């Protein structure tokens, strides 16, 4: 009888213990995020999303972010004459298959970050950040990239 009681107590404890063990969940996509050693002037992932896109031939995807000035301008203008102080960031990720949905790709790792900052004369300064950690890097054709980034339209949302 005593042995049976001990057995019941042990079994109950085991059941209670196992039910308290929480499953980890998905957690965060840290690999696709920025990291503390990245040498960027600010965290672009906290800015407004202007649009997003994919480059299938490179298996990359990007999101174009902007600060308040850039976001407001992109939402009401069809040109790329951003105002003084507007900042755009295009963050490009290598893609990976979405483990949660066969039929989708999600960000895997940041490949490079491009920054455009507009001055009062309408000129934009282009900066490329690349590598691990992300550091300033020489760009092959800054003017071309600046034009491509600034020429993107805001994704429509009613």
């Amino acid at each position, binding site marked *: 009888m005593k042995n049976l009681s001990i057995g019941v107590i042990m079994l109950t404890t085991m059941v209670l213990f196992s039910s308290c063990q929480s499953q980890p969940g998905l957690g965060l996509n840290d690999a696709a995020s920025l990291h503390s050693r990245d040498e960027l002037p600010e965290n672009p992932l906290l800015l407004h999303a202007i649009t997003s896109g994919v480059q299938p031939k490179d298996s990359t995807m990007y999101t174009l972010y902007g600060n308040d000035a850039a976001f407001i301008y992109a939402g009401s203008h069809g040109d790329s004459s951003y105002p003084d102080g507007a900042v755009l960031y295009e963050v490009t990720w290598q893609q990976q298959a979405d483990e949660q*949905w066969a039929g989708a790709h999600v960000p895997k790792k940041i490949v490079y970050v491009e920054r455009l900052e507009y001055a009062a004369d309408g000129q934009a300064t282009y900066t490329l950040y690349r590598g691990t950690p992300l550091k300033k890097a020489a760009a092959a054709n800054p003017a071309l990239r600046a034009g491509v980034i600034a020429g993107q339209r805001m994704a*429509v949302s009613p």
Partner: protein
Amino acid sequence: MKKKTGIVSLILLAIFGMLQFFRPEKLSNSPAGDLAGIPPAVNDILRNACYDCHSSQTNLRWYDQLTPANYLVYSHIRDGRKVLNFSKWDSMATPAQNSALYYALNKIMEGEMPLPAYTMVHSGAKLKPADIEILKKYTFSRTPRGKTDTVQINMANKEYVDFIQGKLAPVTKVAPAPNGIDYIPDYRNWKVMSTTDRFDNGTLRIIFANDIAVKSIEQHQTKNWPDGAVFAKTAWKQQVNVDGSVSAGAFWQVEFMIKDARKYAETAGWGWARWRGDKLKPYGENALFATECVSCHQPMKDNDFVFTKPLNLLIPTLQNK
């Protein structure tokens, strides 16, 4: 003792025999042909693993027809046919067919389908990894990225011009979802949680998180989201450009998940709502549409029904600059 056991067994047998006079409403059953345009190997897989519950042709074994098991079996079949019925394949448009195949594939890959209770007694319906691979390859092959045609480009261009000129439907006139949830107009000011390239249905998605959800992300509390957390999953049609790059085309839809464990207890603790097109038409005939949402998100029940793995937004060294 032996005599007692014998009497009990006889009584149970008699009850079981009497139960056979009670039977559920008969299931309709008509032959279901192979799916048109589908390779034989894929047809075989679907017929073998899915048709019993997801077509008009159900091969009931003798043990499926015994009361009380038949009540459960018939109920599963009726529910299964409602969600996906391959007998209606020919009447489905290609995007709907693709959506059905991707839905089936994902349910299979999650191990949710075929139902484990079903494969326990119908072991032949179990899918082997090689079968799943065949189904996956074929399903993926149905949705290549084609160039966007001029008509779609022109429509997206017009929508964009209306948008930047402020001529799209005013958000104050958006009708609520059938479950009473009101449209939330300011989600574009929220932070981006992640993005998705949905090549299965040709959309690009940005998933936005409100302040409460962002705080949870920053605290790494994403297994159980707090009340007040809201996500806005916004989708645009993929516009495939001449150079092969893909950009956001016409606005397709925005879906909201609103966490309130008590208020939305019947729908997994979340309020679900979706508005389609630039006229923001509420999705769903009635409030029951949310069961469709919960069913699709069911594989993520251990992650609070959320598919998205958020980007880590809190990088102190960058925030301080």
